[in-house]
Each structure stands twice: as structure tokens, then as C-alpha cells.
């Protein structure tokens, strides 16, 4: 039998975020503010994936996320899975799900929306979680997946 090899080494305690589409890696880093983290982090991208073709993976030592933080990732990659590791053992697995409402992350697609002109954090109501439909709290226009752009 062929020996399996880990492309990115294991962590002792922390969180593994797997099945991130490769082109979404940097957005996930930004959404979770990982760029400011002081803990050990491993990033791998363009790794082979049966499900996604190419995927990215993040391993963060000593970091455990709140449900609200995890759910924010669902906007960019609903396919992601989070594995919680304690003492090299998997203790929990979690899947992000879109919240009913959220702030920031995404821009309102309407060029005439006040959030694109003043220093205001956009807020959205999630109308459809499958086909991403986000209604702007301010201008009430609906941003869909094809018009999605990130802050």
C-alpha cells in the first residue's frame, strides 16, 4: 500500500480550515483577520482535491473560532470544512452556514448606494442562502452571487 503523506504538517491544537477553493484563500484570510494573528499558521494552496480540483487549506495553531466568525466564511466558500484539533486529535468538525444578517465583508453592488460613497459599513439581510441573494440594509438593492465583490 502506498504511504500517505501530509503536504502541510499537522498541528497540535487549533483549527484546520479545509476545502477552500484556491482562489478564495486570501479572502478567507481577510475575513478572519488572520493577517494580524501572532500564532503559528500554515497555508497551502493549489493542492490536489477530488471535490474542488484545486483547493487551499489553512492550519492555525491555538486558534478556535466563534460560530459567527465561521459563518462569515460561508459567503465566500460554503464548501469549507473546519476541523478542531486538540492534542493532535480531531475533537469537532464544523461547516459554515450563512447567517441571516451580517455586516461588512461584501460591497453593495449598487453604485448609487450611500455605502459606496461614505464611510459606512455595509449591512445585509440574507434573502437566499443557496443562490446568495443579499439585500442591502441601506438601499434595499439585492446583490447576487454574480455581482458579489469584497471590501
Amino acid at each position, binding site marked *: 500500500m502506498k504511504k500517505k503523506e501530509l503536504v502541510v504538517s499537522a498541528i497540535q491544537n487549533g483549527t484546520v480550515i479545509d476545502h477552500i477553493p484556491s482562489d478564495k484563500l486570501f479572502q478567507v484570510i481577510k475575513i478572519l483577520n488572520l493577517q494580524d494573528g501572532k500564532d503559528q499558521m500554515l497555508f497551502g494552496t493549489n493542492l490536489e482535491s477530488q471535490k474542488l480540483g484545486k483547493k487551499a487549506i489553512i492550519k492555525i495553531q491555538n486558534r478556535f473560532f466563534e460560530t459567527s466568525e465561521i459563518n462569515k466564511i460561508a459567503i465566500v466558500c460554503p464548501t469549507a470544512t473546519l476541523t478542531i484539533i486538540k492534542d493532535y486529535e480531531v475533537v469537532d468538525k464544523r461547516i459554515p452556514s450563512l447567517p441571516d444578517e451580517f455586516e461588512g465583508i461584501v460591497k*453593495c453592488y*449598487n453604485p*448609487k*448606494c*450611500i*455605502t459606496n*460613497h*461614505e*464611510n*459606512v459599513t455595509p449591512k445585509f439581510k440574507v434573502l437566499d442562502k443557496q443562490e446568495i441573494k443579499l439585500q*442591502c*440594509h*441601506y*438601499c*434595499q*438593492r*439585492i446583490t447576487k452571487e454574480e455581482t458579489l465583490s469584497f471590501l
Partner: protein
Amino acid sequence: MNMKNRNLISITDYSKEEYIHILDLAETFEKEPVQNIAQGKVVATLFFEPSTRTRLSFESAANRLGAKVIGFSDASNSSTAKGESLADTIRTVSCYADLIVMRHPLEGTARLASEVATVPVINAGDGANQHPTQCMLDLYSIRKTQGTLDNLNIAMVGDLKYGRTVHSLVEAMCHFNTTFHLVSPESLKLPSTVKMHIKEKNLKYYQYTTIAEAVDKADILYMTRVQRERFLDIQDYEKVKNSCILDKSMLEHVKPNMKVLHPLPRVNEINTDVDPMPQAYYFQQAQNGVYVRQALIAAILGLK
């Protein structure tokens, strides 16, 4: 019903009972327009883009209640011209007035203003988004001419895609078992997000491309202007601007109770030969705007 300090940003902010309350109050102002109940109060009218009807009718309403009016009618006269943020302008004006009435070309500004203001805010139009006081005066005019808001056939004509007054009126009339007759050029049909409200209530709607197909079925014929400023491409505007025009000859076989409404200003979509006809109600409709705005100011300031 206590509506003191309630913002009015979108027509969906108020319940059916609250609209009815405002319409009932407006009726009392129609009977007795001058009531000095707001003496000592200050109403700020902040118009970041030009408007004749809405601003003057708000100012007239405030004056008839005995309130003083401060404000501006052009953003170049405000400190936003110096680069001040909208939020800062609103916070400052909150210190000077008991109520803010605002219009702004950008969408969502009134909602933002209501979140930073320490006094109530009435949206007098935010771009193509909402214009709830126009909707309230439309409801008032419909109820006044038909004696009821329930079970009516309403034909809406013109720019149903971008026309904010149409969107608000559809949403509001969905409370009253309305049948909608939607007349527009193919490219200006009512958006699916607005039709969603009709479908949610299981109401009927029909779509047409000419006024002739709908006019005889209507209790109310709600005409709108195809607005050039809502088009990104001027050629698209030129293609459709003349497609929905009402003239006197179309009124021959209409229902006896039928009235023509229009939020004004009109350009050419209602021929002037309709003006002397008994169905023409658009100028009285504008008059009703003052009573409705008196009612809103009085209710929001907690005076009625």
C-alpha cells in the same frame, strides 16, 4: 395610536393600521388646514437635490402647523460642499431641529441618517429607492376618490422598473386585496423583487404593453413619467419615452368612478386634453400631499 419619534424611511416601516391612522389624521387637516399645534417646533428640510413639490409641500405643511422651517434646497449651500460627511451634517442638524425631512440623490441615505440622528427623520426621497410620503398621499387620494382602499383594480403605467413611487404603492396596496394591471414597455416592467410582494399575498396581476388594454378595467389609473435620469444609456431612454401616453380619447369607456393619478411632474405622458376631464385628479392629488405631510409631522412630533 402613538407614533411619536417614529422615523419614516420606507413604506414598509409602517403597518397597515399606522397608514390608516395617518390617512384619518390627514382628513382632519383637510377639514381644518390651519392648526397652530406645532408652535415652537423646528422642522429642518435638507434637500441635497432639487425638488419643487415635495419640499414646498413639506414646508407648507410645517408652516400651517405653526412650526418654523430651516434648511437648504441645494447641496451646494450645505457644508457637504466642503467635504463634510452626511453623518456629521445630520448629527449637527439634530441639534437644531425637532424633525428632519431629507432628500438625497444617493440611495440608503435616509436610513443612514435615521441611525445617526437624535431626532426623527422623514425620507423625502433617496435616489431611486424610496419616497414614502408620496405613497401616503397616493393612498389618501385613492381612498378619497374611491371611498375605500379595499378590493380595487389599479392600473399602473409607465416606468414600472425604476419608478420608486410605483414600487412603494404596490407594496402598500398589497395590504388591501388589490388587483394590479401593469402597463409598461417591455424593458421597463415591474422588477421581480416587487412582484414578489404581490405573489406573497396571492393577489392577481396582469401585464400589458399598451394603456388601451388596461384602462377600462381600472378604478385608478396611476400614470408615471419615464425619467431620463434613471437611465445610464440615453439611447435606451429615447427608445421608450413615448410608449405610454394617455389622451382624452382613451377615457371614453372607462368606469364611472375611475380617476387618473400622477405623482408629477408630468412631461408628455398625460396629454393636456385630459386636464379638464372629470377623471383628472393629479392636481388635487398634489394638494392632498400637504394634508398628509401635516398628519405625518403632527404624529411624529407627538402632537396628535
